[in-house]
Structure formats: C-alpha cells, structure tokens
C-alpha cells in the first residue's frame, strides 16, 4: 500500500513538473515568437519613422497615442524599442552563433588532437579568460569606427571561450569510447572521426551554449552601446536607448529607461526558460524521471 502511495505521489509529482515545464515552454516560446515577429514585421510594414523628431511632444508619459511614451526628442518609444530590439537581437544572434562556431572549432580541435596541441590551446583559452571580457570587447571595438559589425566581432571574439571549454571536455570524454576505437580501426582519418563521430555528439551541447549566449551577447552589446563605444548614438539599440534616457530618469521620467530595459530583460528570461527546458530534454536521466 505504501508503495502504491509512493508511486502515485511520484506520478503526481512528475505530472506537476511536466505541466510546469509545458507552461514554461509555452510562455517562453510565445514571448520569443512575439519579439521575433515584432522585429521582423514592424519595421518594414509600419510606415512610421522611428527617427521622426517632434519637439512639441517631448517626454510624454505613456498614453493611447504613444503606449510607451516619447523620449526627449519626442520620438515614439514603442517604435524606437522595436527598432532597438531588432538591432540588439541581430547583434546577439549573429555574435552568439559566430562565437559558438569559433568555440566549437577550437574546442573540437584541441580535444581531437590531444597532447601538446590541446595543452597549448587550452592555456591560451585560460589566458584570454583571465581578462574581463567586457574590457577585451572594448579593446576590439576601439579599433574600428562605431557600427554594428565591430560590435558583432567584439562579442564573438570574447565569448567563444566557454563554448571551447565545453566542447573540448565533451570531445575528450567521447574520444576514449570504444566506438571511436572501432572507427580508427576501420581506417577513419582524424578528420573523419571528428566530423562524423565527435562533432555530431557535441552539437546539442554547442547548440544549447549558442542559444544561451544570445541574451548574453545582447547584454554585452547594450553595455558597449551604453558606454558609448558600441553602436553610433543615432542607431536605436536597447543600449543606446537606455544611454539616451539616463538624464530624464533623474528628472523623474521613468518610461524612457524602463521600456528598453524590459525589452532586454524579457527576451533574456524567455531564452533562459527555453534553454532550461531543452537542457532537461537532452539529459537522459531527467528524461526518465519526467516519464514517471
């Protein structure tokens, strides 16, 4: 009887956890879908100029005409936020995937070669990791004229280190599996073993790292832009919007800072939610627990 109760309890527990999961998955996916649709559809479809200055309407609080209010130049903040999110998301996605590509290539090479090559590469990764990456990012953007691509390069060049570590660790553990031995014995070259057996096995991990890095890259972009080093001030990005709004916050106008901030925080939480669900999906132990 006690066993039956225990089993029922664990089933209920499993079901509850599953429904929390589904909820988290749906909410996160819906938020991301709204954000992506907004940035893809609004700029081409809505024929409003985000740069349109209306000094008569400066710093209006949120109202039906301007749901997010206006900034100190009388520009509509909702439109500016969507355009800002578009730039930040573009930078985030491109930079995160470039960083993952670099990290996977470096990590897989180090792991697959092993020995001296591995030690050299990983010591280089350690050395680069010891420098705060925002500082390193600032060095990179400082070398170029402000624009979207220098920021992408700066984020990509400073964020591949953790992916390289994850991929290398995974490759090292896979490398000693008998199926790799069997492939070597079957005449497979080092390249073939890496591409056919090792990389497909680390792709789920690398993909997860890439997705988790998108919000991180967005924050990095915003930080650079906030410091005035990232995007030029006339380009709306979430960072430049918050930077512009600093002055009015002290004067009590909260909306020009709050809404770009929310646009940064909400996608971050949504991506974290999705990544959490994904992580549990690809973890077989958790998967077997969820099946209870």
């Amino acid at each position, binding site marked *: 009887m006690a066993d039956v109760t225990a089993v029922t309890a664990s089933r209920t527990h499993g079901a509850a956890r599953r429904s929390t999961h589904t909820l988290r998955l749906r909410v996160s996916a819906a938020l991301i879908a709204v954000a992506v649709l907004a940035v893809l559809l609004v700029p081409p479809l809505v024929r409003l100029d985000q740069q349109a200055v209306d000094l008569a309407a400066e710093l209006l609080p949120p109202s039906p005409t301007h749901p997010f209010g206006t900034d100190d130049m009388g520009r509509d903040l909702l439109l500016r936020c969507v355009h800002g999110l578009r730039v930040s998301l573009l930078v985030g996605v491109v930079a995160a995937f470039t960083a993952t590509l670099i990290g996977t290539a470096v990590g897989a090479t180090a792991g697959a070669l092993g020995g001296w090559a591995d030690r050299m590469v990983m010591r280089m990764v350690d050395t680069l990791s010891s420098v705060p990456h925002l500082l390193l990012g600032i060095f990179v953007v400082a070398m170029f004229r402000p624009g979207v691509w220098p920021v992408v390069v700066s984020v990509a060049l400073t964020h591949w280190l953790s992916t390289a570590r994850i991929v290398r660790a995974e490759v090292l553990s896979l490398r*000693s599996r008998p199926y790799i*031995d*069997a*492939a*070597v*014995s*079957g*005449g*497979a070259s080092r390249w073939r073993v890496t591409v056919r057996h090792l990389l497909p096995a680390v792709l789920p991990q690398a993909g997860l790292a890439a997705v988790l890095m998108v919000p991180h890259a967005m924050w990095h972009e915003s930080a650079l832009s906030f410091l005035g080093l990232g995007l030029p001030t006339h380009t709306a990005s979430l960072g430049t919007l918050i930077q512009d709004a600093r002055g009015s916050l002290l004067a009590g106008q909260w909306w020009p800072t709050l809404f770009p901030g929310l646009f940064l925080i909400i996608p971050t939480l949504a991506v974290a939610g999705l990544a959490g669900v994904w992580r549990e999906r690809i973890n077989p132990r958790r998967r077997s627990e969820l099946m209870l």
Partner: protein
Amino acid sequence: MLELRDVTAGYDRRAPVVRNATLTVAPGEAVGLLGPSGCGKSTLARVTALLHRPDSGHVVLDGAPVHRYRHRAPRAQRTAVGVVFQQPRLSADPRLRLTDLIAEPLRATGRRSSVPERVAELAGTVGLTPDLLTRRPHEVSDGQLQRACLARALVLRPRWLVCDEMTAMLDASTTAALVRAVEDYRTATGAGLLAVGHDRLLLNRWCDRTVHWDTVTPKRAPMPVRTPG
C-alpha cells in the same frame, strides 16, 4: 604472423597494466587468451589492434614491425586487424543506423561503391534481417548490436581478428551464432584470430590453442587493477 614482442603497456608509465607480454598468432590460427578480470587483457587486445601505443616492445604484423599506432598507423596496417569489443552499446555510434555502422569502414577507406553489396552479404553472414539494418543502436538488443559490430569488423576483410570478450554479454545461442560467423569467415579467408576471454570452456572449444595470461606475461609482478578508460 601476428607477433607481440615483449610488450609493456598501460595508461601510466610508472604503473603499466601489461608487462613484457609475448604472444604469436600464426596465419589461419585461432589463439585464445585466458585471464582473470582486470589483468590487462583488453589493453593487450587494444595494442594488438594498433589502437594503443605500448610503452615498450613491438607488434609485428605480417613481418613488418609497427612503429605508429592509432591514427598515425598506416591505414593498410590498421585495417589489417579487425576488432570486436566487449560492450556493443559502447562500440556503436548511437547516431548511426546499423547499415551505416557496418558500412562505416568502407566509407572511411573510400570504397563507397561496394557498400550495398558488402552490407547485404555481411548481414546474411552474421544473421541480421533487412528490417534490423534500418534501426539505430537503441532500437536493437545487445546481441543484435554485437552482430552488427562483428559485421563492421569483417567488412574490410581483415587478415587478423581480435575479439575482446566478444560474447561476454550475450546468451548461449547468440554466442554460438557469432562464433560460427567468425569461424566461417576464417575458413573462407584464412584469417588469424586472437580471442580474449575468461571463459575457458568456450575458448577451448573455439580456438586451436588457448594460452593463459600468466604464460604470456613471464613473471607475475603485483599489478594494480585497472580498466581501460
């Protein structure tokens, strides 16, 4: 001739797992290597299959001493030895269907054109139905997977076979079927066999001669028990 001359191997030079092992397999001969669990049989099997560089000593393959191991070994030498491991689950890439698993060595050595014909032929030899060939490793039993692993080891027609506890995880009928498949292959091609195991009865019946671990490694030094990583 497949010779192991005074081979010392392990995963830490200060504490080798195998010390001074010497063993010879003549062409067409089946040699059984008996030994207790953890004595270093698998390590010696990996050295024989050129998958692990020994700390000292040599492997001599058909009269040619082997100087390089794993990827560095010339492809012709590597593929001259077919190897079957103890655990089929760990020796099969979980993403490959059984057809691709068996065909993998053909593709790796640029013999794509012979894939359909060889896979069909070997599936018959080891007793895999066409339906099983389309499945992935997690959709078949250990026995079925081990049959595929044996087919993969035979696909390049190696002159030597190393079976490292090939049947330890399997039931009697699958064991019999796999041993028969190996023997049929050897009768047809005259390949030599090194069968590693701890089942004296099986090895005595299967092999031309059975040697005990103690006679392969001359003096019994105290050895730390290790399993290959």
